[in-house]
Each structure stands twice: as structure tokens, then as C-alpha cells.
């Protein structure tokens, strides 16, 4: 008995041309606290606003001068409208995969973070 080879599923043109990301990025201006370590080993904590986010990663501006592959922890306040007034936070962690300079006047760097699969809700 020889196994029949399954025909390769052709990639959707949509995936090929328009969106190669696995999950949709949502443009959410959410306040987030970012924690991590600077290249010199010092801990830092900074509050910023998320530009966009998906379960795969997030993109935001940061003043801290970190490097690629820095481990970061993001804590996002969940809007009270969703939690009926209860203070809940979403904690995510990941590593930096890309950094881009913003315009010359601002010191911030735009940071792209790839999440690992660990996340938790904090009350």
C-alpha cells in the first residue's frame, strides 16, 4: 500500500500579495507599560502608547535605547468599558525584532516586538 500524496494546497493570492501576517494587526491606541533591560544591564520601565498589536506582536515608540532581541514585558490596561469597571491588565512578553527611527525631532525609536506564547490577565 503506497500512501497517496496529498496535493499541495495553493496559497491564497490574498496571503501572497496583501497580507502575509498570520493574525490581523489592530490599530489600538492603548497605554502600555514596557519593562526590560538596557544593554548595560539596567532595568527600565516606560509608559507608551501602542500603535498596533496582534497576538503575534506589537509596534510602539520607546525612548529607551534597547537593542534587537531584547526581552520586553508589556502590561496593557484593559478598558474599563470591557471589564465593567474592574481593573484588569493584560501582560505579554516577547523580544524586539525590528527598530526604526522616527523623525529627527523625536528621540523615540519605533519598536516591533514578537510575542512569545505566554500571556496572562492580571487583576
Amino acid at each position, binding site marked *: 500500500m503506497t500512501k497517496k500524496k496529498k496535493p499541495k494546497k495553493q496559497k491564497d493570492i490574498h496571503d501572497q500579495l496583501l497580507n502575509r501576517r498570520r493574525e490581523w494587526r*489592530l490599530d*489600538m491606541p492603548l497605554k502600555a507599560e514596557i519593562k526590560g533591560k538596557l544593554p548595560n544591564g539596567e532595568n527600565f520601565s516606560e509608559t507608551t502608547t501602542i500603535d498596533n498589536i496582534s497576538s503575534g506582536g506589537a509596534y510602539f515608540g520607546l525612548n529607551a535605547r534597547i537593542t534587537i532581541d531584547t526581552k520586553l514585558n508589556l502590561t496593557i490596561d484593559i478598558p474599563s468599558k470591557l471589564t465593567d469597571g474592574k481593573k484588569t491588565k493584560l501582560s505579554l512578553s516577547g523580544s524586539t525584532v525590528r527598530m526604526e527611527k522616527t523623525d529627527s525631532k523625536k528621540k523615540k525609536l519605533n519598536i516591533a516586538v514578537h510575542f512569545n506564547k505566554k500571556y496572562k490577565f492580571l487583576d
Partner: protein
Amino acid sequence: MKKNKSKASEKKIKVLVYCPSDLILSGIIKALEKGPEINIIGIEKSTIDSLLNSIKADNPDVIVFSNTDPLPNIKEVCKAIKDITGDKKKSKLMLIGNIPPQEEIVGLMNSGVRGYFDLNEPSGQLADATRSIYREEIWLPRDKMSSIMDRIISVVGRDLKEKTLDQLTPTEFKVLRHIGQGKSNEQIANEMFISKNTVRSHIKSIYAKLGTHSRLQLALYAINSALF
């Protein structure tokens, strides 16, 4: 009289033709000459590099690119031409050949092609096609245009669907909100007075509707819905 003459020459469309085949090239030139305002400023028959150099030097309004053999790197060639001409927004690229499948056409247009002239189209239309490209319009064979539009509509429709929660039922939306609050399936079942299996079934349906398999992504959708 002189002024009119110079005005007329200003209106001429500068066309650069690339075609390695002498036979097809003579047909292209004959067809383009039917357009009195078309001025063939150059003909390239050798390599892609020489074509790119001619584009840089002559700055044509329209580039007519014909290649009898299918080029495996045609998209890269189109992108290179787009890079040279893109900023000036002057030179436009039209391919001539046997029309490829619609997916390939969409890919080519993404790489900078503005028109595709099928070899089976009447030669008299080549001048019209060139004029259209010059006017920053798109030229595609009529029968392919509808299938490409169908494709675009389905993609755009899917895109919009992905981003909205309108397709969820009220119960599914409630389940989504609970997920956004960080609740487990058991907690959701207790709060909504339904079984855990029903919760699972709702979540499965939400996953399918939102095109995801990640509970975190669902939570983010819920957070997003609470923001706006």
C-alpha cells in the same frame, strides 16, 4: 505657425519599446505609428540592463515591453523599472504578450505594470492602450478585467470582514467580551448559564468568523471593540 508646431511636439507621447524579436517589433512599431501623437524615442532589443539604462537616459512617458519567452524574473524587472521611474511618476510600463492567469496579472501590477496588451487583441488598439497608460489609466483585456475585479472585490470584502465583529451573533459577542476579560471557558459557562461544550462551540464559531486560532487574538478583538 512655429508656435503651433512646438505645441504639437510637446504633446507627443515619448515611447520606449523593448522587444528582442524583430518580427514582433516590426508589428509593434507599425501599430504604434497609427497614433500620430506617439513618438517612438528608442528601441531596445538586447538586454534588460540596456533597457534600464535607456529608461534612465531617455525618461520615456510609456515603456512598451514585449518578450516572447516568459521571463522567470519578470516581476523583478518590473520592480527595477518602477524604481527608476516611480518617483518621477512619468514613465509607465505596459507588457505585451500572451495574457497570463489573473493571479499573475495582479502580482505584475503590484510590481509596477500599468497595462497588459494581449497579443490576440487587434493591433489597432495598441496606440489606444499606449494613450491610456500615458493618461495614468490601466489597460487590460476586457474579458480579464471582470475576473480581476471579481478577485479584488472578494479580497477587499474579506479584508473588511476580518476587521469587523458585525458577523458575530449577540451570544458570540458576549463570549468574546468574557474572553477579553481574561475568563476561562468554565467561568464563561458559569456566568452565561450554559455548558462548557456550548462555550467551546461558540468560540469555535468565533474563530472561524474572525479567521484566527488564537485566544489572545480574540481578547485583542474584544479590547479593540471596547475602545471605539
